[in-house]
């Protein structure tokens, strides 16, 4: 499931990890490793995530109140910390998604520009 970083994997854009984590936990409570797996799974293994930066990001989001955590049992009956989206996090996710869509729309418009149009 977890692959060595291959040539075709892309590095994550600066500042987008928080957004991806919010999206991942919006689909249901997950532990830290689960967040990593879900992002990789949805991205079709296209994204390389620095695993070490995952936890500081999770803690930052929890500190901001966007996600909350609870200790529970993992699939293989181990003690694990599960994260889930709060109401504040849901609002944040909506906001950030919209911002991202607008930004990517603008950037792709710019990149599509042809010489005669400019």
């Amino acid at each position, binding site marked *: 499931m977890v692959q060595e970083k291959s040539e075709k994997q892309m590095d994550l854009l600066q500042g987008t990890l928080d957004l991806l984590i919010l999206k991942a936990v919006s689909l249901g409570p997950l532990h830290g490793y689960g967040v990593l797996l879900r992002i990789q799974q949805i991205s079709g293994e296209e994204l390389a995530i620095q695993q070490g930066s995952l936890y500081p990001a999770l*803690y930052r989001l929890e*500190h901001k109140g966007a996600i909350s955590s609870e200790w529970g049992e993992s699939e293989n009956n181990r003690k*694990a910390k599960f994260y889930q989206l709060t109401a504040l996090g849901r609002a944040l996710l909506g906001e950030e998604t919209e911002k991202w869509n607008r930004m990517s729309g603008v950037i792709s418009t710019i990149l599509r520009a042809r010489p005669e149009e400019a």
Partner: protein
Amino acid sequence: MSKAENRDHGSGIRAGIRSLAAQLRSWLRVLAHRNRLEAEMETELAFHLEQLAADLIRAGQSSTEAARNARVALGPTLLHKEDMRASLGLRLLDELRSDLRYATRMVRRSPGFSMIAVSSLALAIGANTAIFSVAKQILYARLDVPHAEQLRMLRWNGDGKEAVHSMWGDFDSSPNGTTSSVFSYPVYKQLRDRNQSLQTLIAFKEDSMNATVRGAAQRVVVSMVSGNFYEGLGVRPQLGRVIYPSDDNLSASGAVALISDAIWERDFNRSPSVLGQIFTLNQTAVTIVGVNPAGFTGAKNVQQSPDIFIPLCMQPLVDPKGQEGDLLNSSSLWWVNVVGRTRLDVTESQAQAALSVQLDAAVRATMSIESGDSMPRLALVDGSRGLHYTDQIFKKPIDVLMALTGLVLLLACANIANLILARGAARKREISVRLAMGAGRARILRQLLTESLLLSVLGGVVGLGMGYLGRNLIPDLMSNSWEQGQLNMPFDWGVFGFAATVTLLTGVLFGIAPAWTGAHFEMSNSLKETAQTTTRRHKGLSGRLLVAFQIALSTLLVVVAGLFLRSLYALNHVDVGFKADNLLLFEVNPPASRYRAGEDVRLHGRLEQKFAALPGVESVAPAWQAYITEGGSNGDFLPEGEAFDPASARGSSPIQLA
């Protein structure tokens, strides 16, 4: 569109506040369970590694290979944990804690230096705190009534030839004219009844009287107040009732009184059965109807409360003065103080103008104005601190004391800064090593400042304790045996805040220069020096400036102290014109209702004989005003054989006994 934006904006702010609240909660939670946090971070990362390794094994790796690869993929956990703590906003706190731990170690390692620094700081901060508490109380404290800032005291100014010839109360005459805060009762009544520019006009007068409470006679200060006094000031009793406008009529409600919290405590043991009890005041039986709240000091001053409050209409009964005894109907003697509250819809100058016109009318209506008499002019002054005599007397000495103790504190700062600078030279190696190992200069600066602040906080804590113990020292020094009266200096949050601010400022003041020079020097040179090299005394500009500053300041303080001592010596050796040793001074106040005019003179004659007969008494001398007791009396006199001529008497200067 704009509506939507507004909504967006509003929800953004709401979300921001919610996030802030969440951060605060998270912070507190983490602070409360710091150990649990560390354990949880450990468990979480271990779980991650375990799962990762399990997945790698499932992908076909051997267990040792999988464990190694998992660790590589996750990266250094120590660093991650540091980042996680930083995510929770803990880094600053952790650094502060380590700074403090280090600073504590440094303080302990040089106990001599620390003792000198802390004790000199404690002395300076303690002196500043004690004097500030006195200054705050005497110069700035307001009456303990709601909205004291609205209170305005009525005064009048004259040119020295005003129609007011007879006064009982404060009176100042200077080349610029006369000024006083007392009015006649008829004038007050007319002002009050026609007043539309202040909320209400309240009259009061303080005098000392004899009270016999439960069989024991004592000298008490009594405030005689108009019926609207409590209502106008907005003061409620802590027990019983207040004096009402209906009490202005003596025959209706009888002789009633409120007592102060102090009397309630001292003579009645805070018993609620005090209500209805009867005591005698200058031979008149008076019923206690209420107890004033603690902290309420009447309208005259902030420092001390009168012991007893009675309706002003009781004056002829308990405190007769002058020829007829009744001052309520006397328009010639001016004696009551008048205070009012500003109204929101009337400006101060409007109020003053309106009251001036009314005073003029009231004076003309109640007194006969002779030719050559001028009219007193009304002035509204701040009444939030009562008549504030004390600050007129003590303002200068207190300002001087404040300035001097401030200089002492500054000198203590300079001394310690210099000591730290000298020590800083010895610590160059240590700091160089830390710089070389990657510590930032800001971090070193912070570390050195933390050490200074720790010293100053230690000094501040000890100083605060000394200030607390010494807060009554200055009032005790200023009081004399003739006038009883202990001013109590409250030690409140304001004083604590002052001490804390001074402490922190002190720490920064003496710490910043050494810390700056400590953190900014060429480390390469210091590292090259061997341990045997004796570190040179820091020869920077700041060191030399500090020494010059220290010497200048010390000289100034020594000169001032010398001058003070000289003045003190001179004061103790003033020739007062009579032999001042083995003198006993005391005052007798026979109640006027029992010892009427003539009778009181005979009483003093009898007292004089009896005292003279006592063994050990060499001689006895009665006096209307005792020497050098700060009392005074003004009066006109006529040479024998001359007839009283009102026209020439106007403007003649009365003789003054002091």
